[in-house]
């Protein structure tokens, strides 16, 4: 299926499908986008398929339609759906925000802000990523802080100050009380919120050059398997129980890999997108052990891929 392109008046940094209840047995039709680098940034909600007619293959022929939007202070550095009605954003202003979506998608409004969640003593500093496991949220930033929140609480639950001397680029939940962060000196750090101390439970890194890591995702079924990507475009799959060597190393891209995702229901499929302008779809061939990954080209003409990396 050829991708559909629509030109809008903003640069998009993140796009996320809205979760739907699995009981509905449908494909998601609504997605959110966050913009960056504009004078006025916004978070927008779009729909595919509501106005258009999907053909027999379940493909959509119409362009996405804008449903509603809300102003966003600062670049949208990360975007995650907390649940069906709430969207969390990480801002370049250092704030973490929750947006509420009306049930009929008619309006999107700011419900709560944690201002200056990430900061230096005098300046603001970008919050680089946020991850949700309702009702909990974790955010990380260029200030090297890891912060834990509860969606309905104004006060932050816990802050790990100086968790990292370099920028933390991404975070993912491992278990309910454990998160994994990746930083700009190529380290993966595990944090256990049950522990009192502010030190990581474990630190992993590739032997060799300290290449910054930009993204991380956990295998949907196996809590100890994670995939990471970084500045050199290398895709690594790790077993966090097994120390410093990822069991899979692939030269996926020729530039920074911005996002990596396991398919939520079909985890032998992975998606990566990169500054080199490509979006790649990977599949493991050997069952659950993930030791071989094959690249499946996404059907897109080279000159319609825009310079901004899109994320699945």
């Amino acid at each position, binding site marked *: 299926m050829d991708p559909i392109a629509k030109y809008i008046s903003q640069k998009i940094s993140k796009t996320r499908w809205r979760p739907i209840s699995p009981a509905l047995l449908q494909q998601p039709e609504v997605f959110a986008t966050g913009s960056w680098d504009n*004078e006025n940034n916004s978070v927008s909600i779009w729909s595919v398929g509501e106005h258009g007619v999907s053909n027999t293959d379940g493909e959509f022929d119409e362009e996405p339609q804008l449903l509603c939007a809300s102003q966003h202070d600062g670049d949208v550095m990360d975007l995650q759906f907390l649940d069906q009605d709430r969207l969390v954003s990480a801002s*370049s202003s250092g704030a973490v925000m929750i947006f509420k979506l009306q049930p009929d998608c008619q309006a999107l409004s700011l419900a709560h802000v944690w201002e200056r969640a990430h900061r230096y003593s005098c300046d603001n500093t970008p919050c680089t990523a946020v991850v949700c496991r309702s009702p909990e949220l974790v955010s990380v930033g*260029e200030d090297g802080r890891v912060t834990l929140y509860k969606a309905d609480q104004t006060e932050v639950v816990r802050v790990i100050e100086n968790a*990292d*001397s370099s920028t933390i680029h991404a975070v993912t939940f491992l278990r309910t009380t454990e998160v994994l962060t990746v*930083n700009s000196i190529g380290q993966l750090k595990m944090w256990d919120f049950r522990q009192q101390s502010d030190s990581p439970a474990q630190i992993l*890194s590739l032997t060799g*050059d300290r290449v910054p890591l930009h993204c991380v995702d956990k295998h949907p079924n196996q809590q100890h398997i994670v995939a990471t990507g970084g500045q050199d475009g290398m895709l690594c799959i790790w077993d966090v129980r097994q120390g410093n060597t990822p069991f899979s190393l692939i030269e996926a891209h020729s530039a920074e890999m911005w996002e990596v995702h396991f398919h939520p229901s079909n985890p032998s499929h992975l998606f990566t997108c990169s500054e080199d302008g490509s979006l790649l779809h990977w599949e493991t061939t050997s069952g659950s052990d993930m030791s071989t990954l094959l690249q499946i080209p996404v059907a897109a003409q080279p000159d319609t891929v825009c310079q901004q990396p899109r994320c699945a």
Partner: protein
Amino acid sequence: RSFPERSESHLIFVGLQKIKEDVPSKNKKSQFVSISKNYRSVIRACMEELQQNAGKRHMTHIVSILLAIELIWNLCEVLFIDAAPAGSLLLHLLDWVRLHKSDVDARAREVLQSDSPAHHQSYWDVVISLVLQGRVDEARQVLSKQASLRAESSSVFKRMDVLLHTMPIFNPTGTQTLTEFDVKWRHWHEECDRCLQDNTFASNRHLETICKILVGDEDTILEQKELLSTWYHFLVTRLLFTHPTIKPPDLHYYAQSSMSMFLGLRASPEPLDIILLSAFEFDLHQVIKDCSIALNNWWFVAHLTDLLDHCKLLQSHNLHFGSNLREFLVLEYASGLFTHHSLWQLAVDYFDHCPEFGRVYLELQIERVPLDTERKAIKVLRICEDRQMSEQVRSICKIMAKRALRNNRLGSALSWSIRAKDAAFATLISERFLQDYCNKGSFTDLDLLDNLGPAMLLSDRLTFLGKYREFHRLYGENRFSEAAKLLLSLMTAKIAPRSLWMTLLTDALPLLEQKEVKTQTTHALQSHFTLDEDIESTKTELLRLALARNLAMAIVKEGTIET
């Protein structure tokens, strides 16, 4: 100005640059025409979007500029890019006029949908407008509404219907040659004239007017000024009915006279009129120049000139100026993009396709992009690295590293230094660490220091830092022998900074007390220290004492046990 237009036209521009030189010119022409149409559809899409926000005064102004731009571009496409020969030329010009005078359709619809079309007040206006645009079949259709009403005059209408029906229209894809068409057309023209001489339409002044138009009577056509509304519509209509086989080089004569006749003595031509006239005169250079001045729109002149340059049309005009003009305009446009807070990324591709000065412009502009977030800095860096702009890479990394250092983010600072392979800055960071150590008595950011890896080799000072931290770790784990050896190697390698010798000495002292530390090591350490003149005398005394004791113990030990 509109963002999607910039983004979409950027893609068209990049696609155009990729068209290979060695493709045969016939295929290229159709590609260029297609690209021209793509650009025009971008303009129209932009107009449509703006018109949806109609009502705001400055919007209407912008829409009218866009209309002018599309008009000019379309004409350039017909005359220069498609370069239609005689025969097709007029057909294309007719299309051009029809596209830019769309109110005829609305009026026609209004008339036809009314209760009694033939009595509608605009009825004859619609018929004549259609004839003026050469849309004879549609004119016939509207005329047929009249004919059915008045049986006694039906023969007159039938006569007109025949004239209109038999009007020859050149078919470029057909087998008929231009000469054959011309002969046919002259016969038809004579037939129309005969009708006038015979006063066939004397009973109906409207039909009489139409017949005069068909014959190409300039005064009659000119009388339809209101319906024509522009001199170039007048020009095309005039050509349709007097000279349908017009050749491109002959256009300018008719264009000049049409404009004079239409505007009359009182009105003076507007900038748009001058530009169109220059186009009819095939003076590309003048068109571009006047567009640049009058329209204040770099987007238009840059993209159009670039396309014309690819069609090799600028070269024939002014050899040594040709490609430079294109580059100048593209550079101007791209520079404007660069000052835009979010469009700077598009500008890069434009600079890439300016062979003479593109790189220099990029080098100058890229350093001015504000680096609000690390992610943005990384994107800027990637642009620089892809083009081997190493000076800019260094400069940007240094800015980021300094900022990180100011905020005490030593790991980040180091990360930027590694990317730039900036040994000097890595040294600076290491000094900062060591300074902190001296002030606080312990190391900060152990997660970084304990995991430096090969990055340690970036600078001597950094290597020292890593090893020194390792020394402390070994000591903390009571591995004194290894610790001492490491300390010794640090000193032998001469990478310990002068300022730290005192500190090293203080660290070394307790070591010398340790039994495990071998005699050899102790001797070696001793020799390093005693050679130094800067060391405080008390400490030196202590050292000598400790050494002496250790030496004594060692001698005793060696004497008793075989090591």
